[in-house]
């Protein structure tokens, strides 16, 4: 039996014989020859899902109680350690600015006055989860064989290399290549992320050209070194808009072991409730830690992120009564705002836990009469997520 947010979406799709007896609709699919490939098996499960949604909803309580993801499949996500990031790049490429803007909420305009970094600077942000970040000054010869690089690179999840796209970037690329080779040889588990930074000053066309050129060069060279198969991700970023937050979100998402489960949960929610896009936001940093599998657009993220600001501000204005004491634990914290007069499309927000919120962009056709369906399904999603994050 697979319920909407039951156990099997968090584990690999169950074998067909496992669910044979419980699901009344399974008979038809069980008659498939056992030789069916995994892919078609998946799609039949998908149809199954739609057909049996009603039954699933009825029996969801059972599904939830039999849920046991945390115990069985490896250590729970938060035990695995917090996402640790390491910022690297040539001098004056914007490492400190990124770190300060994202993790310390420095207004972007004030990054102009930041001093050059001379020693390893660490910062951590306590939010829904703790983000640890560190910044390496350019002068440090970390790759030389006699340097104790282990002290820096062990426990690091991702290395972010920042390229100043407004500057001459060829030197930066060759440095990046040395780093990439170094990482591939010594720390193959570390993700390498490349931020093509300071794109705010470039025209749309030039921005794209730069992005493509950097990617092409790095990829070609890496292939020559024999590490072409190593995944390197590239992002266009700027601290003056939301692109840096979106890029950081994508970097962080890769480091979360629970990502596939969250992604599946959100995707299912989206298809059930006609949601255009759903995000799980870390409210404090405004980094999203999961989203559904549909393509992401910066525009959607922007409007959601701005709306989180609105809610936080309003909460601050009127939440003065219970400062210090804990509010009513049972009450649901939720919010919505419609886009236009018709009220047909809207943003829906629901707090999952302290500092973690679900934010949905509702598409066309999700008017007021869809609300009960949404409320019900979000409640279930909430329960499932609580279990995912339970330590």
């Amino acid at each position, binding site marked *: 039996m697979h319920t909407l947010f039951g156990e099997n979406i968090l584990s690999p799709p169950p074998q067909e014989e496992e669910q044979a007896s419980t699901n009344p609709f399974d008979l038809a699919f069980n008659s498939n020859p056992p030789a069916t490939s995994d892919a078609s098996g998946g799609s039949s499960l998908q149809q199954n899902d739609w057909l049996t949604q009603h039954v699933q909803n009825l029996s969801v309580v059972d599904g939830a109680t039999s849920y046991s993801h945390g115990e069985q499949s490896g250590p729970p996500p938060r035990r695995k350690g917090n996402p640790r990031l390491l910022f690297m790049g040539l001098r004056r490429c914007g490492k400190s600015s990124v770190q300060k803007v994202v993790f310390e909420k420095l207004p972007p305009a004030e990054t102009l006055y930041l001093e050059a970094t001379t020693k390893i600077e660490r910062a951590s942000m306590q939010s829904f989860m703790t983000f640890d970040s560190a910044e390496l000054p350019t002068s440090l010869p970390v790759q030389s064989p006699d340097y104790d690089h282990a002290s820096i690179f062990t426990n690091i999840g991702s290395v972010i290399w920042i390229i100043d796209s407004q500057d001459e970037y060829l030197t930066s690329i060759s440095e990046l290549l040395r780093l990439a080779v170094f990482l591939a040889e010594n720390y193959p588990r570390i993700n390498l992320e490349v931020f093509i930074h300071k794109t705010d000053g470039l025209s749309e066309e030039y921005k794209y050209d730069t992005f493509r050129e950097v990617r092409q060069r790095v990829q070609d060279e890496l292939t020559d070194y024999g590490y072409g198969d190593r995944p390197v991700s590239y992002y266009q970023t700027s601290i003056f808009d939301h692109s840096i937050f979106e890029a950081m979100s994508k970097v962080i998402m890769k480091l979360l072991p629970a990502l596939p489960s969250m992604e599946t949960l959100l995707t299912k929610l989206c298809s059930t409730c006609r949601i255009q896009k759903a995000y799980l936001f870390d409210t404090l940093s405004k980094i999203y830690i999961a989203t559904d599998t549909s393509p992401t657009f910066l525009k959607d993220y*922007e*409007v959601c992120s701005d709306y989180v*600001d609105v809610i936080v501000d*309003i*909460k601050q204005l*009127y939440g003065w009564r219970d400062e210090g004491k804990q509010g009513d634990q049972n009450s649901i914290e939720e919010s919505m705002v419609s886009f236009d007069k018709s009220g047909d499309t809207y943003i829906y927000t629901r707090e999952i836990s302290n500092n973690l919120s679900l934010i949905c962009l509702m598409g066309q056709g999700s008017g007021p009469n869809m609300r009960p369906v949404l409320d019900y399904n979000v409640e279930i999603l909430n329960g499932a997520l609580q279990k995912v994050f339970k330590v």
Partner: protein
Amino acid sequence: MERSKRQKQRKVLLMGRSGAGKSSMRSIVFSNYVARDVRRLGATVDVEHSNIRFMGNLMLNLWDCGGQDSFVESYLTNQRSHVFTHVAVLIFVFDVSSKDTASDMLSFASTIRALHEYSPSSRIFVLIHKMDLVPPEEKTAIFQKKSSDIRKACEDEEFLPDQVGFWATSIWDQSLYRAWTQVIYYLVPNASAIENMLSKLADVLDARELMLYERTTCLVVTHISRGSEVKNPFADRFERLSSILKTHKHSMAKHTGTMASEVSFAEMQVKTGSFMFFITRLTENTNLAIVIANDEAAFNCARINVQLAKKEFAHLDIMEKKAKDPQRAARDSVAAEEDARGSEDGDMSSQGQPSDR
């Protein structure tokens, strides 16, 4: 009731030295500019008139007067009577970072002298602008000093102390909205009637706070606080809300690809463990923000009750089909305007604003 249906035109002069920030301010409040975009504005040549309809029956006739010395010279000489008659409010903007304070004061003094000559009963709002350029710890002291200097100049020109108000403003925070909210509150013709109706509504809803704001400018027209909400430590929450809503408007405009002036939402709800908050349309031009206790049933009741109360408030926004023509006539001929004002005397004095004749 009949009286409140007539559209009221109020002349608002926006003056100050060149580069003080008059047009920037106007663009942000009334034309949905973002603070960082105002650097694109050029100098204002002569007077830019704009008519802004507020809540249906209040027409703000805003005169943005270019501040370059040659223009000011002409306002004070050959355009003197044209500019300074029938002024309801003068907003004078001082640039706090200005080096040339002596001539700022001189220009201010000659302006209010002319004002006193033609509209002695008008109100003066003095905005000490660009406060963001002053270090935070010196703000109060500088503001105090500036305003006492200016107050002296006003008294020299025989303006009563309560005719003059002082506000420290900056386009980079909500202080701009604080000043403009006061201007609007002073100008709204039937503010006390609206307040009465709103406080009745607040009693019915058992709301903690109601805020009525104008939709395009997001300026809070009036608000009702009940019970313990009066003790809310955020005394500046109304202008903060203006600022929050304005920012939200821009973000929505960016997302939907429309003009910021056209963006409007049907409803916004925020429910938390300690309060529930929603904003809904009240009339054609206004939205109502409501804060109530955390109670789902009361929340839904309140939503329905506000819908029901809408028609009670509908007369605040009389669509100006009928009123438009007399209005135009009134603008052309002084005599017609004087007539109209004559019949409004009672209403005006009820808000403490004597007729300017």
